[in-house]
């Protein structure tokens, strides 16, 4: 009897764990979809809130913080407000990135997102922030590529920075465009092997295609 009891207990425990995991997966999938449909910056801020709620329930997972940071960075890009308001969004995004990095260190996706946030900070005031932030963004994308040479997002953003540099120095877009092309191939592969219930990062293909139009 004792034995049966303990078996039931274990069974119940594992069911509840897998139930919790399913609940997490389901919540993430739903919120990723909501985020992808988001319109104005305020929608993205709501998405970030949703991911923050999932994060407080799953302190061992890096993805909720990752998506919260991503939603806030995109909110800053879309925001119609002033520099101060955008900086507030990005400060919050950086906090999420720091938490994600504390859970999963040397993660190419997180490092690339960190660089993406730096790019968003730069975009707020390129004239006065460019000199300081562009090498910083460059360094982060470089590190993200080093950590995973198959990360299409890291390669795409590195390519975008290279294109910016090339435009400035008039050195020609060959290198940047090469990176964009490489990232598009990786995006294709990612899409082929992607399970529809995958919650790992898979965004960026449209952005790469958009950048690619400057190469032709």
């Amino acid at each position, binding site marked *: 009897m004792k034995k049966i009891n303990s078996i039931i207990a274990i069974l119940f425990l594992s069911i509840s764990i897998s139930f919790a995991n399913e*609940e997490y997966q389901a*919540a993430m999938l739903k919120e990723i979809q909501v985020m992808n449909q988001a319109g104005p910056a*305020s929608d993205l*801020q*709501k998405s970030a*809130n*949703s991911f*923050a*709620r*999932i994060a*407080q*329930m799953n302190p061992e997972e890096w993805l909720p913080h990752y998506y919260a940071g991503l939603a806030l960075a995109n909110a800053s890009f879309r925001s119609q407000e002033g520099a*101060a308001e955008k*900086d*507030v*969004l990005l*400060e*919050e995004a950086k906090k999420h990135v720091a938490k994600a990095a504390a859970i999963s260190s040397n993660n190419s996706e997180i490092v690339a997102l960190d660089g993406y946030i730096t790019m968003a900070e730069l975009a707020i*005031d390129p*004239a*006065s*922030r460019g*000199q*300081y*932030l562009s*090498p*910083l963004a*460059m*360094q982060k994308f*470089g590190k993200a590529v080093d950590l995973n040479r198959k990360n299409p997002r890291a390669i795409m953003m590195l390519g975008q920075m290279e294109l910016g*540099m090339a435009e*400035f*120095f*008039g*050195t020609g877009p060959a290198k940047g465009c090469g990176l964009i092309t490489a990232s598009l191939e990786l995006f294709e592969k990612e899409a082929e092997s992607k399970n529809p219930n995958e919650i790992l990062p898979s965004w960026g293909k449209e952005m790469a295609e958009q950048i690619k139009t400057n190469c032709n």
Partner: protein
Amino acid sequence: MKILAIFFLFIQSQLLLAQTNIQGVVKGQSGETIPGVNIFLKGTYEGVSSEIDGSYKLETTLTGEYILVFQAMGYNSLEKEISLQGESLVLEVTLREAINEMTAVTISAGAMEASDEKKAVVLKPIDIVTVPSAMGDIIGAFQTLPGTANVGNDGRLFVRGGDASETAIFIDGMKVANAFGTTASNVPTRTRFNPNLFKGSFFSTGGYSAEYGQTLSSALALNTVDIPLRNQGDLSIMSVGGGFAQTLTSEKNSITASANYFDLSPYQGLIRQNFDWERAPFGWDAEIAAKQKWGKSGMIKAYVHTESSGMKIWTKQPDSEGRGQLVDINNKYTFAQSSFKQIGKNDWSYYGGFSYSNNIDDFKIAADEIRNQNKLFHGKMAAVKSFSDKFSIKTGLESYFIRYSEQLISQDLKREIVDNQYNLFTEADYYLSNKLVFRGGLRSGHSSLANQTWLDPRFSLAYKFENEGQVSLAAGTFNQMPLEELRIINPTLQNTKAEHLILNYFINKNGRTIRAEAFYKGYNNLITFEGQRFNYQKIEQTGEGFAQGFDIFYRDQKSIKNTDFWITYSFVDSKRQFARFTEMVQPSFAPRQNASVVVKHFVGKLKSQFGTSFSINDGYTYHNPNLPGQMNSKTRSFQDMSVSWSYLPKPNLIIHLACSNILGRENVFGYQFSEQANDNGIYEGRPIGMQAPRFLFLGIFITLSKDKTANQLNNL
């Protein structure tokens, strides 16, 4: 098992039946509605965000006791215990504003900050090195900022009627003694430190924090870069010398070693000089900077700089023919320091360090051989406790050890003073809101040599308006021991004293910055004496004085495309009784009106930045013994127009060409008169002029790195 399942279903259905609606509006303290608030039941997935109008509606099927959390950026989180019973709840909440470091008011009275990381700054570090008239000297750039006077025959920093010794320089919080190179009189000097070392600076022209002491007029705090971005070698080839620096970095630490050599002989061989050089200035320096991350948030830095330089110059004497007197100067200098910062538990943080400066000057003047040595040791330890986001207290302990000696080698004579100083400072910051902050501080000190104990209260407050503009007020008293060359003759000399009162308005919005400041500074216990250096007599401390005025700074990066410019105007009305003067006079280093304009224009097609800076003042006062009274004359207006061209043909190559005084104006900084009147009863005077009509600088800076886009500006 079946029963269990049915039971489980039953509970589920019970839960489904009991739906609770929680709704309301979230507002801030001043009644504004807050959109985007994250509202959720702690420990569950249940939650919503507030709408644009601050309203929210949370529907949940959970029952029981829960905690409802309200989280919003810029506000303190709020938690409310609620009981879910299937009935509707209406919760109207008010969130308290959090003090946000980035957007909160900052005390800007007296202060001008250059930083990349903070938003309310006057300049970025890169702006400092690209000021055309600065010629790569960090102090040259500060001379285009409000409150400073350009004293072209000295080169040091003169702030609001104060002399150069009234500005203290700190690197990473630690005092630097003899920060400027040793030079002959009327030959301008430069700072010893490469501007690339620093990531930011805090320059205060008065009313500064209780953390800074032993300085009457100004504090300049320079902060060194943290871990550089990458491994790189930097080669510089300049018209006056060259150097190489190698940086090695990793995630947690970095080391940079550099060596530089300069010699003005070839340059002076090509370009005619007004001064009579026997040996043009030459020298070398070597330095090592190491950084180590300490734990999650700490950092330890160490820095050693050592250098040697020399020059020989003939100085004409007003009452004699020929080349005059030969002055031979050799200088050896070492500065070493280490500093740390760490964040501790329970909202404590700590920082501190030590520095050591050792300066040896060897002068050969006529038959005399003189050696002056100045050693300073500075140790500091400070702790900050944040009691909340609104209130924090900083407390620190400092000690200074000073040893100064003068040696007349030819006669085997030596004299020396040793002074130990101990300081305790404490300062409290209280934010009433994001709009209003108070700061009160107290600094105490004791000097063993002067056997004097003193206390300096400091106070400031700042208020930010709706339009982002802010007004601040600062007041305080400041103590500074007289120069060592005077104390060595009279070791019982006490502190000279100043009191500051400053009113400041500052706004930085949409790429434009306006800063206006009015000030009053009173001086007491100033030193008066008779005689010359090494032989001062009748040293007394009865001098007094004042400086009052205002300055205006306007910077604009938006109005003209690809153009950044700033305009500065400073008015100083200053009089003091000091040095050899027996009444209050306007000092030669305090021109009444100073203005400067700096313009930088970037041309993308040419990959070039063109810069020009123009400085003007209304002339320097001087004492003409042929006329009645003291400090009775004034030179004509000083004017300088400098231009520069920075060219980036490749990402890792910078070519910089700069020329000062392109209009070739013959500036005069004062007159030197003979000691004795000539046969006609007239004291003969000679103008103190410039080294050369212009100074030309050409530099080629090459960065060697795996990352081909790296250049030497990346470190800034």
